[in-house]
């Protein structure tokens, strides 16, 4: 038996306690958890251990090694992928290798999103989240080859969704993708998502107001618009140079950072052509982490940065003194964010990730202020949210639901 493990900050379980010399499909281990995992080529099972919930996939060694490398590479590139922890090989009796990944906490499988009436508002953002994920992958030269609802996990991100790559078996890494490769990847995604939605429809679980054809056409449109915004060369009059700054601001607002902008001028100098070099998604998430140490999703981070700025403006008005951004952020963390989270009873904190909890508290405060026509503190909103809204919601740390 051979274990190839990634060194992580979080403790890894002692995998040798698992029945690794048996085919995964035949395991009867106590910690096995049945999950709605969608359609997969290989045996995939989930095991709950002291250190958390882990996904185990049995597949030929060559493929396991390849997927291990691809997932690690994509994670290093900042693409949202499930965390890969290791590969177990040489299990004897011609057994295939096992690829181990950590289950993505607070993730929502697509069947859950369609089955729950209470989160129908999130369905709208499935398409957006997949379009963003595909664009992120394509920017780093990754051809997925099998984007589907089954191969994607979703997490709440400030009232919308963020999508995660779960399976990279068919993926290919290139220096850069050609337009044809991107087009094929999008075609495959459209076909797979269309099939997945028709399958839900056949099972009677697709809400009647969702038209699968419309969904996949929207995906192509959203992806096309996003790619254009991220990469297209733009031509502006010399006098309209401010449009370059506006484009870069829009890219930041979309969550993407740029490292350089290539600018060329026409022969008579009246025209400027420019193209941004987009490097990485997660603009707001990185900014929030720099200021507060919090590692949150992009939309959550954007919302919190707005709250940090509002808090800074309020402090400046109250004290008549502009504080440096880092000081404001530090005080916001200690005086706003942490007290709000602490106001949630510990037994309810598992229902959402901390970032989403805070977003929902702010959302709740907005509703309270609107109803009461008065200012409500974040901490007071948190107490009300914890007693009125959170107890009726489903815990999503390790969402388990029969398929």
């Amino acid at each position, binding site marked *: 038996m051979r274990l190839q493990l990634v060194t992580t900050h979080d403790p890894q379980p002692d995998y040798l306690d698992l029945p690794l010399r048996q085919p995964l499909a035949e395991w009867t281990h106590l910690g096995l958890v049945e999950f709605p995992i969608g*359609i997969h*080529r290989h045996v995939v099972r989930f095991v709950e251990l002291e250190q958390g919930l882990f996904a185990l996939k049995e*597949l030929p060694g060559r*493929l396991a090694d390849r997927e291990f490398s691809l997932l690690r590479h994509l994670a290093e590139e900042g693409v949202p992928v499930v965390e890969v922890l290791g590969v177990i090989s040489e299990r004897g009796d011609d057994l295939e290798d096992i690829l181990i990944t950590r289950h993505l906490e607070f993730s929502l499988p697509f069947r859950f999103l369609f089955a729950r009436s209470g989160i129908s508002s999130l369905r709208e953002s499935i398409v957006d989240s997949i379009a963003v994920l595909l664009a992120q992958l394509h920017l780093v030269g990754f051809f997925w080859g099998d984007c589907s609802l*089954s191969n994607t996990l979703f997490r709440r991100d400030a009232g919308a969704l963020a999508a995660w790559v779960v399976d990279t078996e068919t993926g290919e890494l290139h*220096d850069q993708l050609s337009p*044809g490769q991107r087009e*094929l990847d999008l075609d495959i995604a459209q076909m797979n998502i*269309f099939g997945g939605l028709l399958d839900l429809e*056949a099972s009677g679980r697709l809400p009647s107001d969702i038209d699968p054809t419309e969904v996949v056409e929207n995906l192509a449109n959203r992806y096309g618009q996003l790619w254009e915004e991220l990469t297209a060369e733009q031509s502006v009059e010399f006098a309209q140079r401010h449009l370059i700054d506006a484009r870069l601001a829009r890219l930041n607002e979309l969550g993407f950072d740029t490292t350089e902008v290539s600018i060329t001028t026409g022969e008579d100098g009246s025209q400027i052509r420019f193209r941004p070099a987009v490097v990485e998604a997660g603009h707001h998430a990185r900014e929030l982490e720099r200021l507060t140490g919090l590692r949150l999703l992009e939309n959550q981070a954007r919302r919190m940065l707005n709250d940090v700025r509002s808090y800074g403006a309020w402090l400046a008005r109250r004290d008549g003194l502009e504080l440096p951004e880092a000081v404001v952020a530090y005080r916001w963390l200690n005086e706003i964010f942490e007290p709000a989270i602490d106001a949630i009873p510990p037994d309810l904190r598992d229902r959402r990730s901390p970032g989403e909890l805070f977003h929902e508290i702010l959302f709740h405060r907005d509703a309270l202020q609107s109803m009461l026509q008065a200012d409500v503190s974040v901490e007071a909103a948190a107490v009300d949210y914890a007693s009125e809204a959170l107890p009726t919601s489903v815990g999503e740390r390790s969402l388990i639901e029969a398929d």
Partner: protein
Amino acid sequence: MATITLDKINKVYPNGFHAIHDLDLDIADTEFLVLVGPSGCGKSTALRMVAGLEEITEGELRIGDRIVNDVEPKDRDIAMVFQNYALYPHMSVYDNIGFALKLAKTQKDETDRRIREAARILELDEQLDRKPAQLSGGQRQRVAMGRAIVRQPAAFLMDEPLSNLDAKLRVQMRAEIASLQRELGVTTVYVTHDQVEAMTMGDRVAVLKDGFLQQVDTPQSLYDRPENVFVAAFIGSPSMNLFEGTLTLDSDTQQGKLTLGSQTISIPSEVLASRPALAAYDGQSLIYGIRPEDMEDASLDTRPDDQCIHGEVSLVEALGAEILVHFGVDAAPVDSGDPDAVVELGDTAVVVGRFNPRSRIRLRETAKVAVHAERISFFDPSTRLALWD
């Protein structure tokens, strides 16, 4: 249906890497052509250029009579197939086969006609109302194939479609795809790194290495008359045994002698008469190759002693219908240039022979092995090209 023509196709990446060099291929209508070669040989790049997924740096690509260098992938009337075997569990076989046509907004009666036609070809007519769970493993695979068939493209392009499957299913699917392609008669280009897959599936096989076409021919011709050392070693499993030795011709007997380390093998006069080019190598070094099946346990063969060699047996693999015997000789092995092959260069070579299962050769014995000298392949040591004439 269509022909596909690659005319002096080149691919140079922005970093200067020249992936494909002057590739010429004429793929006939209805032909099943396999592109094969070791990793990095350019086979997937070539396929991706046909699909429109990579730009062509230089040269001309035609599908039918149309030059398609600048035609969008979706307008080339080709289908990249079998990338995804997932079947949808709640949908019937009928819907699993036909849902892509719904997305393409194909007319309902046309959709129905194509699904039923595909089902007939795949022998799934009786299963159209069933769910995937009610099908056998093989039937499920055929449903996935049906999904590609109903699109009715002019050509299928397949890039290592079986690489994610386990060994047993791969063998089964190999046969299914090959027979289906012949029934459909759709021009197909298939990429694989597996020479067994290439040999068993293709009407013709194109062997690539380092972006250069090495040889394109029928599987049997590639095997029997490889044009160079690389093809000789790459095609066939186990590989051809390659050595460097000296050929000496005897003008009296019209026979030759070929050195194998400290041993010699007699080359009959008929062999030399049929390959006059060998005369130019009298007294000189050349590369030669012996396929495993062109050797036999000498106790089961009637060849004279001067066509036998000896070596210590290091491994015996009993495969039922045959045994593979590995034995050492004191001759330097030859590197065929296959980056995926493991060759331990040195003063001794391990030779693999495919023997009759009645052989009683034992591990660690010195085996006496008869060589079918008339089947030896010869190559020029500098050009590494075959000397068939």
